């Protein structure tokens, strides 16, 4: 890696020429030596962080020393008091100069405030979500444990839940983890307490769950090892929030029995406020009840798991151990663990990893806005510096040292940045609230987002960096000009000096390039997002509402009872006013993901081991489901009321499933069977093909899906399917339809709560909440960036035109045509713009591509986006050029000459 020496070589250029000529080569060699002797990249970074600022401060000090070399004692007397005196004097000077131009000063402060504010706001989110440890004791050594299926196994799931034997074996075999706990998210129905029945999110957890997380109950106790056995008396723990809301913070709650899922359950404890792991809405914990002696099938995966690294054990060691354990499992269970193994990763990554690319993209975008602000400030400071060359020269002539002149400009930049930073912090404070108002739910841990000590420190650091970046160049240039004794130049030159022109052009080019990257990034996101929104979900969400009910096996032990309840709920509902159609299904698109079930096809040998297994998402549905939800029937038919437990088993498959498993053939009439269902009646005849549905997300391809008729499920050998989402196509108000459903259910069984009540419009909306959040912010940042950029380009060009006023006046006086002058000025302005466009396009080629795939999950960029973005930036730049150019034309020769 050659970065370090390159950076140091650049930094060495800051030294005065005589010093550089004598020492630079050796210094670079010394550094290269250090660099080579430093191996780890972290140490190298540290070396660079130590060396470069030291070089820069040394360079400034050396400038100061060399400026009075020969006239004063070689050896500077350094006293703290004097430095402070300098500083306050410089700041006073700078403040006076800035007060003299309130309009410009406030423009600059606002520019910086917007940039710093946006960056700080996004950093606040990044800080709370990505950097802060999870709010669990010693969360740093908690790991999430997942399973993984490689294609070799016949499946392809990069992240999958675990089976109970896997959890039990891993817990027994590991030495590096201090414990392995598992859980399964469930929902339970709570009755009693005098209130309506409630359906709440809960978790079935292993007995060591709480001790592994190192959280003790506030009241009562956690589960005993005995209670974590199958068939044990029912016990539960409550979250503090649920204890309060449902049981009015009853102080005698511990020991009380409460009907959970229709079973009397003893409450043994209440967890402390704030503890709701695994999900923010978890209200109840019950024992999972795995029997370590006979944990069940190794192939039945349903558990989430976490572990805790033992003290002093690194993640690498735990991974190495896990690899050994996996080798053992593969030898013992080759049929299960070929291409299937466990992996671990830090719990924080697991919780927030998915949002990381989006947040980092936003942080980069805001950094660009800050950089544009820096370029603005640098441009203005330079122009001001030149306007004050005379002042500087006089100061220099009166004995001001080079260093003092440099400090004066840096003090101005510092004051502006500090004001901008302070205002920015305020904006960030407002902005964070704004961000959360846009969408809180799309970011994990959003409830924890807060401004802590790190945020002001960050804002301060950004402000200082801004001052440094934007102040150094103008300061050095200004001081150099003054040192040359430019009293002459300022009175007679009619064109700006070449070097300064170049710097100014570079600033314009940089602003344009940054704007292009920002605008293109936002454009790519916007277009990708629109494409996402334009995706046909495969069903009609408008006017579709859903609510779920679940029938406890205690109250509805027989399949006939389940069937009778659902059929009467739907019969009554269909007759209710405002209901155009109604049906039910086990899983609703975008709301809850259907499980994938393996199947067999009659008359075909199953795929051999090592090839992809035959499977597809399986949805249990009732008649009219396709019509209610709005999925078109492409061939054959959907379920009818005749498809019941007594008739022939039928299934309906999705278009993708038909194309994948019956290519070029009519699938209707073929028979498939859920794998493992051996009942003779298990073969299901395909009677129809219906349209594809984007069931897991608009960005994800529709999964092959097969539908199974709920009344027929018991004939498959399975128990009745008890939890169903009722779907209603409304002709009136959605609220009325839900109210109708509520009263129908209440009439039939008042003990049944309705839950997951949603309008499908809102579900669809929520499914794109995160890309919408990212896109909205990126577009806002791009607009801010391009406006700031336009201001900067305008400022620089206006100044250039102003300095050329005498030249233009003379040319006009000599009879040069207006168009010629106009094109001259425009050319001077647009040349750096075009350069910036080119650089920006080059940079965007990678950034926008990465953005689209990493953040949005869509691939590719298109020409239109590029064209529109380039056109937008170019137009803005053109206007920024045209205004000063037009002003140049109005220069009257007389005024021009008088300005001399």
């Amino acid at each position, binding site marked *: 890696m050659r970065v370090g020496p390159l950076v*140091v070589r650049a930094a060495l250029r800051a030294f005065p020429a005589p*010093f550089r000529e*004598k*020492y630079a080569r*050796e*210094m670079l*060699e*010394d*550094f290269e*030596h*250090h660099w080579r002797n430093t191996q780890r990249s972290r140490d190298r970074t540290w070396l660079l962080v*130590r*060396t470069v600022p*030291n*070089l*820069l*401060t*040394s*360079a400034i*000090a*050396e400038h100061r*020393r060399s400026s009075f070399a020969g006239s004063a004692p*070689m*050896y500077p007397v*350094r006293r703290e008091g004097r430095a402070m005196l300098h500083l306050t004097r410089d700041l006073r000077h700078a403040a006076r100069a800035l007060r003299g131009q309130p309009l410009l000063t406030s423009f600059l402060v606002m520019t910086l405030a917007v940039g710093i504010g946006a960056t700080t706001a996004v950093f606040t989110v990044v800080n709370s979500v990505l950097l802060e440890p999870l709010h669990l004791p010693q969360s740093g050594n908690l790991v999430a444990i997942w399973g993984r299926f490689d294609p070799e196994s016949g499946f392809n799931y990069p992240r999958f839940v675990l089976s109970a034997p896997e959890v039990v074996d891993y817990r027994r075999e590991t030495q590096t983890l201090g414990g392995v706990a598992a859980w399964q998210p469930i929902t339970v129905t709570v009755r009693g307490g005098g209130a309506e029945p409630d359906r709440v999110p809960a978790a079935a957890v292993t007995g060591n769950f709480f001790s592994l997380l190192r959280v003790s109950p506030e009241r009562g106790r956690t589960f005993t090892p005995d209670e974590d056995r199958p068939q044990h008396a029912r016990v539960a723990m409550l979250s503090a929030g649920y204890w309060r809301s449902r049981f009015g913070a009853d102080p005698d709650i511990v020991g009380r029995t409460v009907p959970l899922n229709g079973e009397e359950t003893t409450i043994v404890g209440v967890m402390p406020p704030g503890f709701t792991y695994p999900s923010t809405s978890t209200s109840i914990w019950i024992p999972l009840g795995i029997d370590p002696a006979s944990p069940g099938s190794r192939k039945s995966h349903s558990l989430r798991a976490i572990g805790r690294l033992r003290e002093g054990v690194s993640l690498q060691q735990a991974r190495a151990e896990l690899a050994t354990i996996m080798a053992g499992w593969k030898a013992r269970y080759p049929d299960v663990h070929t291409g299937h193994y466990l992996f671990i990763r830090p719990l924080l990554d697991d919780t927030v990893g998915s949002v990381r690319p989006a947040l980092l993209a936003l942080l980069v975008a805001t950094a660009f806005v800050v950089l544009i602000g820096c370029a603005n400030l640098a441009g203005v400071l330079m122009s001001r510096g030149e306007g004050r060359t005379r002042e500087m020269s006089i100061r220099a002539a009166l004995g001001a040292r080079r260093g003092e002149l440099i400090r004066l400009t840096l003090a101005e930049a510092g004051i502006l940045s500090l004001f901008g930073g302070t205002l920015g912090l305020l904006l960030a404070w407002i902005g964070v609230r704004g961000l959360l108002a846009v969408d809180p739910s799309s970011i994990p841990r959003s409830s924890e987002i807060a401004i802590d000590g790190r945020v002001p420190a960050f804002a301060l650091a950004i402000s200082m960096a801004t001052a440094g970046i934007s102040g150094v160049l103008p300061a050095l240039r200004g001081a150099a000009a003054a040192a040359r004794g430019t009293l002459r130049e300022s009175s007679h030159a009619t064109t700006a000096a070449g070097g300064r022109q170049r710097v100014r052009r570079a600033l314009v080019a940089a602003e344009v390039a940054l704007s292009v990257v920002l605008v293109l990034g936002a454009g790519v996101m916007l277009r990708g997002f629109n494409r996402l929104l334009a995706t046909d979900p495969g069903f009609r969400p408008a006017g579709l509402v859903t609510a779920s009910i679940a029938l406890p096996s205690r109250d509805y032990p027989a399949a006939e009872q389940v069937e009778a309840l659902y059929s009467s709920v739907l019969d009554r509902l269909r007759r209710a006013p405002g209901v155009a159609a109604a049906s039910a299904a086990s899983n609703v698109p975008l709301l809850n993901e259907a499980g994938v079930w393996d199947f067999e096809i009659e008359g075909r040998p199953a795929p051999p081991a090592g090839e992809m297994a035959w499977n597809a998402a399986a949805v249990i549905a009732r008649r009219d489901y396709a019509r209610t939800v709005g999925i078109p029937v492409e061939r054959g038919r959907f379920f009818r009321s005749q498809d019941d437990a007594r008739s022939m088993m039928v299934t309906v498959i999705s278009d993708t499933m038909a194309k994948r498993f019956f290519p070029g053939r009519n699938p209707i009439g073929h028979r498939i069977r859920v794998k493992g269902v051996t009942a003779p009646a298990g073969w299901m005849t395909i009677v129809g093909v219906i349209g594809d549905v984007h069931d897991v997300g608009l960005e994800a391809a529709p999964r092959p899906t097969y539908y199974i008729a709920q009344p027929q499920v018991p004939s498959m050998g399975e128990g009745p399917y008890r939890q169903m989402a009722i779907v209603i196509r409304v002709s009136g108000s959605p609220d009325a339809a839900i109210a109708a459903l509520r009263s129908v259910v209440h009439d039939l069984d008042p003990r049944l709560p309705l839950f997951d009540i949603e309008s499908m419009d809102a579900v669809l909306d929520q499914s794109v909440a995160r890309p919408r959040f990212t896109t909205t912010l990126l577009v806002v940042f791009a607009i801010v960036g391009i406006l700031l950029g336009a201001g900067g380009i305008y400022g620089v060009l206006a100044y250039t035109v102003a300095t050329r006023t005498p030249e233009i006046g003379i040319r006009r006086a000599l009879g040069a045509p207006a168009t010629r002058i106009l094109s001259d000025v425009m050319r001077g302005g647009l040349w750096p713009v075009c350069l910036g466009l080119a650089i920006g396009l080059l940079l965007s080629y990678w950034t926008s591509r990465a953005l689209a795939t990493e953040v949005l999950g869509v691939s590719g960029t298109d020409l239109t986006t590029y064209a529109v973005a380039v056109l937008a930036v170019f137009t803005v730049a053109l206007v920024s050029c045209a205004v000063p150019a037009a002003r140049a034309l109005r220069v009257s020769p007389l005024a021009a000459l008088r300005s001399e």
Partner: protein
Amino acid sequence: MDPRTFLPLPPLDFQVLLDLAAGPKHAYGLATPVEVTRDDVRLELGSLYRILARLSSDGLIEETEPRRDESRPDARRRYYQLTALGRAVAGAEARRLEGLIRTARAQRLLVPRRK
């Protein structure tokens, strides 16, 4: 020139003079021991060369030919050694510090370190 006009010496300048008192060294050799063996102050690249430039121009140190007995003389590097003035200044600084230490002892600020 009276060495005392240079007093008090900035601590890093003093460190460099002390390191050179043992014999001529090049800049890299100066940076390394200071950085590795002393837990006091790190001598960064920029500071080191500024100090060398300043001490040279003040006449406290001078450039020299590499010593012959150096195991692997690196001809491209500049070697530095103390001048008579430099040695005198370093000595004067050491005496000044010694005086300070004596005062500190007298004020019971320096208690023997417990091992």
